[in-house]
C-alpha cells in the first residue's frame, strides 16, 4: 500500500517538512541567505536524518520488546544527540575537508526539530525499515529543496526595494507563505 517511492514523494513534495509541517524552521529562516550554505546545510541534514531514522527504527523495535513505550521520547533525543556527535567525530577523522565544509551546521542539527520529527512520525505511522529510510531521504530532499528555493528568492530580495517596516523576518515569512501555497499544488500526486 505504501511503496517506498510513494513515501519519498509524499515527504519531499506533498507534505514538505518545512512548508507543510513547519519542522526545521530555524535553519530555514536562519541560513537561507546564500545558495551555497543552503546546499551544504541540506546535505548535512539529509545525512543525519538517514542515520537518525535507522537508529530510531532499532530503538522502537527494542522498546516494543521490553514493553516500555513511555521511554520513546527520552531515548530518541539521547540517541540522536549522540549519533550526531559520533558522525561529527567520524567525519573529522576520515575526511577533514568535508568536516570543514559542513562546519558548525553539523553540531546544530541536534536541535533541528526535523530530525526528531522524522523519528516520531515514522514511529506513529509504523513504517518498516525500507519505508523508514525512504521517508528520511524524502524529508531530507524536501528540506534541501525548500532551503534552496528560499535562498534563491532571498538573494533576489536583497536587491529589491521594500518598505523598511517589512524588511527582515516579516517579508521572509510572507515569501515562505507564497512558497507554501505553491507546494500545495502537489496535493493528490502519486495517488
Amino acid at each position, binding site marked *: 500500500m505504501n511503496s517506498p517511492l510513494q513515501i519519498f514523494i509524499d515527504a519531499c513534495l506533498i507534505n514538505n517538512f518545512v512548508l507543510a509541517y513547519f519542522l526545521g524552521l*530555524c535553519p530555514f529562516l536562519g541560513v537561507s541567505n546564500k545558495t551555497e550554505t543552503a546546499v551544504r546545510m541540506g546535505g548535512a541534514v539529509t545525512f543525519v536524518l538517514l542515520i537518525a531514522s535507522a537508529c530510531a527504527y532499532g530503538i522502537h523495535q527494542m522498546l516494543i520488546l521490553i514493553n516500555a513505550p513511555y521511554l520513546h521520547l527520552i531515548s530518541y533525543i539521547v540517541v540522536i544527540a549522540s549519533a550526531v556527535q559520533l558522525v561529527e567525530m567520524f567525519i573529522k577523522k576520515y575526511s577533514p575537508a568535508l568536516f570543514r565544509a559542513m562546519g558548525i551546521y553539523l553540531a546544530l542539527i541536534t536541535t533541528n526539530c526535523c530530525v526528531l520529527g522524522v523519528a516520531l512520525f515514522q514511529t506513529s505511522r509504523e513504517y518498516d525499515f525500507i519505508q523508514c529510510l525512504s521517508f528520511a531521504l524524502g524529508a531530507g530532499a524536501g528540506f534541501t529543496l525548500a532551503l534552496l528555493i528560499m535562498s534563491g528568492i532571498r538573494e533576489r530580495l536583497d536587491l529589491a526595494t521594500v518598505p523598511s517596516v517589512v524588511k527582515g523576518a516579516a517579508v521572509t*515569512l510572507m515569501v515562505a507563505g507564497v512558497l507554501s501555497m505553491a507546494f500545495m499544488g502537489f496535493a493528490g500526486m502519486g495517488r
Partner: protein
Amino acid sequence: MTTENTPAVSRNLEALTRGMWRENPAFVMLLGLCPVLAVTNSVINALAMGLATTFVLILSSTLVSLIRLWIPKQVRLASFILVIATSVTVVDNLLQAISFEVHKALGAFIPLIVVNCIILGRAEAYASKNTLSKSLLDALGFGAGFSGACLCMGTIREVLGSGTFAGIPLFGPDFAGWSIMVLPGGAFFVLGFLLLLFNWLHERKKTLHNVTTLAAERAP
C-alpha cells in the same frame, strides 16, 4: 541596567513580565516558531499547545534550578535535555488523560516540545543561574508570552478561516471562510503580518520619542 539598586519586589516583577511583552519569545526573539505556526489553526489547539509548553517550561525550570549546583559544567546541556524530555513525557501522558481529542489533534507536536528552543534557552540562560522562586517567575512569564502568541495566531486564523471562535459561530450562516487561513500558507502570512505590525509600532514609538525629545530641547 540598574537592577542592583531596585527593590526585590520590582526585580521579581521584571522577571515575570519580561517574557510576556518586551522579550516575547515568538514575536520578538523568533524562537520556537514551529508550534506557533503548526497547531494554531484553531483556538482550542493553540490554547492547549500554549498551556502544555508553559507547563513543561515551569516543570523543567523548577528541576533545573533545584539541581543546578550538582550538575558538572561539561554535561549540563545533556542533563537539561534529559530533564526537559522527562517533563514532556509527563505532559504528553497528562494531556492524553485529560482530553484525548485535543491530544489527537496536536499529534506529534506535543513530543516535539522537547526541541522547542525557548525551553532549553530558558534553562541554560536563566534557570541554571538563578534561585527557584525567580526561575519559576521567569518560566511563568515566558510561558504566558508564548501562550499569548499562540492564542493571538489561533484567534486570527480561526475567526478569518472558519468564522468561529473556539467552535462558536460568529458571523451567521452566510459567511464563507478564507480557507487559506487554516492551511499552512496562511500561518506564514498571519505571522508575517503580525511581525510587520510590531515593526511599525516600534518605529512609530521611536519617531514619536525623537520628536518629543527634540521639542523639549528646543523649548526655552
